């Protein structure tokens, strides 16, 4: 007898929240400081507007098609085109997982384990994630619920320990003229919503539709975390240094001392960021396997998950590994692809659905 693989809206939101933490540490607050300078602190609050538009569209689609993105694709585009597009998304998830594996490995290499080879981290992470992806998604969602608490505690502890050293003058002055740059940076923050769209492929597993009241508080917490990290890094390093550093948040942790006795906490903090990576990559591999199963008409995703993981490892090792190349990928190409895969289909689908009178 097979157990039902369902997740609750709370678990879905926890997955999206923890997965977004994995994405934000790769780019923020460095990218925000680079784009908006001292006004970077306004980026998270200003992202509310584009987020609200995106959320309104997403929840409108959810209400109409609670079966998730695959159902939406087949219903609006037809069975054949729907299957092909679902397969394309499956391949994108494999490639994205490959990038995340490599990027996570590079993070370890540049912050703690210099002189080591990336394949070690890529391989172990892929192995762990493949095992999770080959199973049901409910255990991953339950793990996300646990990791969310841990990550919140970690972020709060770092904020507490950093507070006394912040120089708030470095966050000033904030002027109306900076709002434009801050709004552009806010779009980058809003791009995190792409993860919500990707997780929409799990829509059929939801035991009931996700409501805005389930998601809104955690989106607010996520924006709060981004704003907090930005304040911490700008208040500690100033905008220029923050924009120059690869991982300013980890640099900040490197100098933390607890009661003058405990120092060098950064390996613990960096390693704890493994959990968001695990959730995101496992879900991507799981969804990739499910999508390809649907596209290929296979009976189960269990064998496809290790294949997807192997392909992701191959993609990870094929990617350029230098710090600069990795930075270019995570700063420009990958966010663009994320935005393209997440946001471009929504208006197209709505148009197609209107044309076919499916919604």
């Amino acid at each position, binding site marked *: 007898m097979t157990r039902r693989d369902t997740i609750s809206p709370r678990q879905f939101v926890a997955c999206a929240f923890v997965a977004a933490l994995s994405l934000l540490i790769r780019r923020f607050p460095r990218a925000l400081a680079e784009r908006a300078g*001292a006004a970077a602190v306004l980026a998270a609050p200003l992202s509310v507007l584009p987020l609200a538009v995106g959320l309104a569209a997403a929840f409108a689609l959810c209400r109409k098609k609670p079966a998730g993105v695959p159902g939406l694709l087949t219903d609006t585009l037809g069975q054949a085109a729907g299957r092909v597009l679902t397969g394309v998304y499956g391949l994108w998830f494999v490639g994205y997982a490959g990038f995340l594996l490599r990027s996570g490995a590079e993070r370890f290499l*540049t*912050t*703690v*384990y*210099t*002189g*080591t080879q990336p394949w*070690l981290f890529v391989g*172990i992470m892929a*192995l*762990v994630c493949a*095992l999770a992806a*080959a*199973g049901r998604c409910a255990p991953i969602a339950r793990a996300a619920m646990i990791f969310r608490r841990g990550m919140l505690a970690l972020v709060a502890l770092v904020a507490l320990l950093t507070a006394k050293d912040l*120089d708030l*003058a*470095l966050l*000033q*002055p904030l*002027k109306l003229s900076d709002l434009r740059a801050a709004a552009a940076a806010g779009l980058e923050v809003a791009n995190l919503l792409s993860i919500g769209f990707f997780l929409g492929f799990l829509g059929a597993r939801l035991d009931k539709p996700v409501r805005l009241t389930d998601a809104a508080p955690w989106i607010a917490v996520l924006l709060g975390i981004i704003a907090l990290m930005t304040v911490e890094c700008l208040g*500690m*390093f*100033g*905008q*220029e*240094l923050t924009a*120059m*550093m690869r991982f300013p948040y980890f*640099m900040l942790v*490197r*100098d933390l*001392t607890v009661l003058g006795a405990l*120092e*060098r906490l950064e390996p613990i903090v960096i390693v704890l960021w493994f959990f968001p990576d695990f959730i995101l990559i496992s879900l991507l591999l799981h969804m990739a396997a499910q999508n390809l199963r649907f596209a290929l008409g296979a009976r189960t995703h*269990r064998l496809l998950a290790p294949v997807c993981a192997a392909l992701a490892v191959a993609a990870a090792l094929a990617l350029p590994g230098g710090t600069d190349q990795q930075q270019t990928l995570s700063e420009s190409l990958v966010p663009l692809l994320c935005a393209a895969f997440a946001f471009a289909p929504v208006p197209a689908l709505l148009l197609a659905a209107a044309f076919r009178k499916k919604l």
Partner: protein
Amino acid sequence: MKRLFFPLAALALLTLSGCGLSRGIYSNYRAIEELQLVRTLGLDADDGALVLSAAAARAQDGGAPVIARCAATGIPQGLDALQLRVPRGQLHFAHTQYIVLGEDYAARGVGDALDFVERDIHTRLGAALFVVRDGTAEALLTGSGEGWDVGDVLTEVLAETSRHGDCCVFDARETAVDLSEYGTALICALRLKDTQDSVFGLPPGLTAVPDGYGILRGGALVGWLDGADARAASFVRGKLGTVTLAVPAGGGTVTVELSAPPPEIELVSAEGGIVLSLSAAPEAVIVGQTETKPDTRSLAAALDAQLREALERVLERARAENCDFLALTRALRTQGVAPAALPPDWLRTLDARVTVHTTVRPGYDMDARAGTDGGGAA
């Protein structure tokens, strides 16, 4: 799949343990008993070449700390080369507390050192930064030879300057931030001194004493701030501890302990240049015996004049060198003026108005307690 999970997970953990005949695949593994924890790192320039020196913490058995020196083409290469120069164990830089720069090195520019500290995974931006006046970092690290522990000396300097010094110690992060945000920074200067008396509770003999600030502009050492000027700079930056001053007043000399909150720096007007109003309200406590006791009003006036003169002199120095080592830009920022909005020569044309109003209080004095519950005769 479940049957495979636990053996695979156990195998994965084994590879990470660092146990085994070799180091394993965990490249950062170090046997703790072999570590020589570096407390002080020295950087010098010798005829254009980089010279690194490192002093480890004193051994647990009280043995002399390990000191190593090497010449190198760059800091990372130098740190590797230093490993070959230690007689025992392995140098470990993760707990480096102090970075000492020779005067020649600082004059060439500290950008490389700060870049390295930012990027290297071992060294920290929290390390305190010093520059040796008229000397080299290597001379400070090797000191008087046998029994010399530069780490102990610098710990005493750090503690003393934070309480009573004219100057204070900035760490690498503060220096890097000042350089990136304001283009200039101050760095605590040290001078090697052979003393007959105990300094900072350290035994007589060779020691290092704080000697004002080095001024960094564009990352390179461009000058020094001495004595009263260094004190005034600390004061403007809100870093002054409690300092002891001898003030000529009322026909004698009064010794006071001066402490002050950071001065209020205000942008008064922006028409035809920037006009800064700097208001200081220090507090002086009389601690020294005086031959002729001056009234507090004349003492306050004398202190006001002395402090105002020092503040105006240091402001004039900043203006003359067009170098914002007083971090006035920081004060302007808090009032909504973006550094980028300032004209390039705003400091040269700065009109600064200094106001000092010292409050003088009598110090601990048995006479003053007469007739109180102190038990003295009424």
